[in-house]
């Protein structure tokens, strides 16, 4: 399998889906001539032309509106919000419109659209360019929320997202863009709503998302040397969630650590904890632990941002606590 980078996998998925289906188009700020702020749309403009790769004004609400209107009338838009943080400018269109149109119009309309956006800290980009706001979207019925952690998953899930008939929030990760990984040649997809055990283990379940999957895997390796075998699960699709994958793992391990990069309080991991404490309570041998960001905006300065970010060592510590318990 050839190796490529995460951002390149995104790029390939877009390219292949655009080749496959003339209804697919791409729009957003600087996605065409410049090929995207993080190069995710590079080359598409040259290949598909300005009709299908559209540079828009800086106007997130109308970028999403463009996608909704186009999806309602037979196209399959893939739009980019340059940073997760800027989606704050488009929440009405996403939440009151895209998410609800099918339902409030009685079920008939299909709304095949994808809204891509990179989240995450670690680039010293400061408080308005580093957030992870996935928990907002997972709380909204009508949206699907995907957050791939690997190169393979990024490509396969984006292809599935583009072929899906629902509005999809596709959350990439800025730091992962440069990650390398193998992807098969040719077409493949990954089903939406199916998580993956990224590492098997019997002593503790670690559910991790996006960048934290890699930190969890690193932590698991370290722990293994101490004879603690962690099972690492990446839900990949946050909504709908592959709940049973997690519950089954907890039934086996009896212990749960949840790792996510967003602010801990009311973050996505709270839902995982809640589900497990509702549905697998009798199997839990120890308190659940969450490893996530503290309750502060994301600071600019290096030592602060480093302090802010949840780390593999935090996961190790959490695992040791629940295993000791």
């Amino acid at each position: 399998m050839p190796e490529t980078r995460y951002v390149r996998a995104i790029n390939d998925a877009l390219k292949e889906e655009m080749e496959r289906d003339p209804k697919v188009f791409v729009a957003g700020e600087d996605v065409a001539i410049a090929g995207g702020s993080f190069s995710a749309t590079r080359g598409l403009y040259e290949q598909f032309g300005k009709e299908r790769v559209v540079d828009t004004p800086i106007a997130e609400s109308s970028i999403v509106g463009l996608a909704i209107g186009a999806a309602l009338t037979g196209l399959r838009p893939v739009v980019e919000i340059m940073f997760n943080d800027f989606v704050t400018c488009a929440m009405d269109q996403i939440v009151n419109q895209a998410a609800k149109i099918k339902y409030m119009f009685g079920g008939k309309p299909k709304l095949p659209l994808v809204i891509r956006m990179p989240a995450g800290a670690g680039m010293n980009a400061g408080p308005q360019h580093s957030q992870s706001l996935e928990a907002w979207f997972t709380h909204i019925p009508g949206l699907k929320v995907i957050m791939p952690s690997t190169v393979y998953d990024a490509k396969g899930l984006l292809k599935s997202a583009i072929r899906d008939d629902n509005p999809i929030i596709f959350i990439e990760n800025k730091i992962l863009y440069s990650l390398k990984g193998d992807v098969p040649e040719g077409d493949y997809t990954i089903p939406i709503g199916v998580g993956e055990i990224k590492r098997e283990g019997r002593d503790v379940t670690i559910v991790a998302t996006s960048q934290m999957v890699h930190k969890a895997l690193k932590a698991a390796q370290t722990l293994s040397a101490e004879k603690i075998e962690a099972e690492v699960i990446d839900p990949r699709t946050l909504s709908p969630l592959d709940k049973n994958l997690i519950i089954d793992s907890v039934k086996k391990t009896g212990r749960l650590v949840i790792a996510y990069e967003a602010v801990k309080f009311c973050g996505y991991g709270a839902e995982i904890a809640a589900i497990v404490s509702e549905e697998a309570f009798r199997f839990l041998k120890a308190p659940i632990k969450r490893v996530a960001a503290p309750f502060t905006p994301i600071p600019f300065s290096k030592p602060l941002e480093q302090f802010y970010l949840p780390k593999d060592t935090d996961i190790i510590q959490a695992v040791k606590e629940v295993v000791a318990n």
Partner: protein
Amino acid sequence: MELTKEDMVKLFTTMLTIRRFEEKVSELFLGGKIPGFIHLGIGQEAVAAGCCFPLKKEDYIANTHRGHGQCIAKGADIKILMAEIFGKATGYCKGKGGSMHLASLDLGILGANGIVAGGIPIAVGAAFSAKYRKSDQVVACFFGDGATGEGAFYESLNLASILKLPIIFVCENNHWAEFSPQSTHMDIEKVAQKALAFGNIKGETIDGNDVITVHNAMVKAIERARRGEGPTLLECNTTRYRGHYEGDPQKYRPKDDLESAKSNDAIERFKTFLLEKNIVTSKNIEDIEGEIKPKIDEAVKFAEESPLPLPEETLKDVYS
């Protein structure tokens, strides 16, 4: 496209149907038969009728909370419409949307909208799609004067202007937004002036209570759109008779404002015109009334007799 006599009778019939439909909705709402919030366009019928008449079936509209009229003018079946307003399973949205969320993609109705200006970006998306698909369709996007307060309105005009999309932005300027006069929302008189902020948008202000004027202006705007020359911002000055929603006693409204609105009744004016030009006789008018009434009654009967959705319906239709 010159209006034939037949066309004019059709237009009149549409306007009168909207009026009688909404009068009935008002009555039923005040009688406790209809739940939720109801916003009526009584007094504004010429805009809906005049703008939708020159649209083809494949063309799109996007409208607002005050949206019954445009739906009827775009060809909605008033039985199914009434059923939706009642929240019945037989309604356009199976009772899930109600008065504020009427939609029928088959008829090109992209949806009334409970969010002020919320439908405008979507309408632009549909216009983009029409251009992309080279389908020759156009979009009529309705909104009120108050919607010009929202950023989404301007963003949408800008985008449509830059991309020269086939869209007509129809401002139904009834000079009120909820309980506040136009002056709370803007410090210019003519909404159409806002077109000047964008390059390819043509702004025009017309008498929105004169259905023929509305129709003719819309025909020009549609032609412009189909020629690929870009959007029009068509401001139709009109009049809201009822409160913002049914049940609103309009205490905030100067008496003469309401009176002068009523003395400018679009339907009365058109009726006088049709009679004066000998296009119809009083008898014809009576006949039209006579045809509409049973249809409205039938719609009410249909809605009343239709089943409510089953509670478990709640859980369906979230995803495709």
